[in-house]
């Protein structure tokens, strides 16, 4: 009986391993996509000359977590960076006119 179980166990382990690597590949892909979106938004903020340090920190955190293989946290950090970058773009766009209200006359 033991002899017959060994190949089954090997196949089971191989399947788990394959599933795990497939899952890891998917999360890496997901991270790459989330990071690319965040990076593009931050680049746009850079064109508007209004990047935030918090965005840069979140992008660095995303890269750091991805390098450690922790894609769940890496994706979360990339999404946070994207939200921050979009807020800085919104700020810069609003301020194109809003600054005039503060001028001393």
């Amino acid at each position, binding site marked *: 009986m033991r002899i017959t179980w060994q190949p089954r166990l090997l196949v089971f382990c191989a399947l788990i391993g394959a599933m795990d690597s497939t899952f890891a590949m998917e999360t890496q892909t997901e991270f790459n996509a989330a990071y690319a979106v965040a990076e593009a938004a931050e680049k746009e903020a850079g064109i508007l*000359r209004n990047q935030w340090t918090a965005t840069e920190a979140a992008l660095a955190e995303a890269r750091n977590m991805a390098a450690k293989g922790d894609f769940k946290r890496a994706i979360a950090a990339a999404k946070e960076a994207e939200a921050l970058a979009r807020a800085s773009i919104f700020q810069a766009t609003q301020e194109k006119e809003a600054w005039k209200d503060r001028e001393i006359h």
Partner: protein
Amino acid sequence: MRFWPALIMLLALSAASPSRAAEGTDPAADARAFRDYFFKKFPDVRPDDFVNGPYALDKDMRRQWEEKEQFPPYEFSLEMGKELFAKPFANGKHYADCFPGQGIGVRQTYPRFDEASGQVVTLELALNQCRETHGEAALSYVGEDMAALTAYMAFTSRGKPFDIEIPDDPRARQAYEDGKRYFYTRRGQLNFSCATCHVQNPGERLRAEVLAPALGILNAMPIYRSEWGGMGTISRRFVTCNSQVRGVPLEPQSEEYRDLEYFLSYVSNGLPISGPGARP
């Protein structure tokens, strides 16, 4: 029928263009309004005293500062600046060869608008342009040597009123206007503009710091800051301000920072140079 909508659109676009916006600016009126705002806000402060920043607004801080001025913390930098200024470059030329009046007593005329390049030239930029003209590497705009050189040049201008000119050139007016826009624009995660601290809240405390009024704020530059544990140039001040509101600072002496310096210096015309200064 198609002609009129197109013409209206064209007129609207040209009216909104930056060059047209600059044509409508009146820097002299701006400067008057700027000064009046601060004179009304702080009626007990003598106009010339605005160059002393928080010390003009807080009696206790002023007492401490006056005692500190007996042995000012910028003295070492001043000595170093004097030596650096006199030291010849490898080609035998000096900084003095690059400036009107041999560079002595001219700080109050910087920034200038350079019509050849169409750019604002600050004192820091002029010093590096001088070095590069004579085959020397540029200094860091946030480093000790630049602070020391500008400290010495400011010292030779002490008491001379800021005398910034905006020539009759649309590019110069645009640079001034861009500097003004930068000054009032909110930025960084904290959503602060320069004006948030230095127009709306001078005299108030931000943690342990008493905020300085924008009027005369550059007259004391460069400054020794206890917080920095050393001297800092105008570039260093702008970079630090941006970081403090959690914005990614621009490159020192970027066009935006130079234009900002142009605006802030112009609106302080008539107030005496007091640099180098010392701040907490």
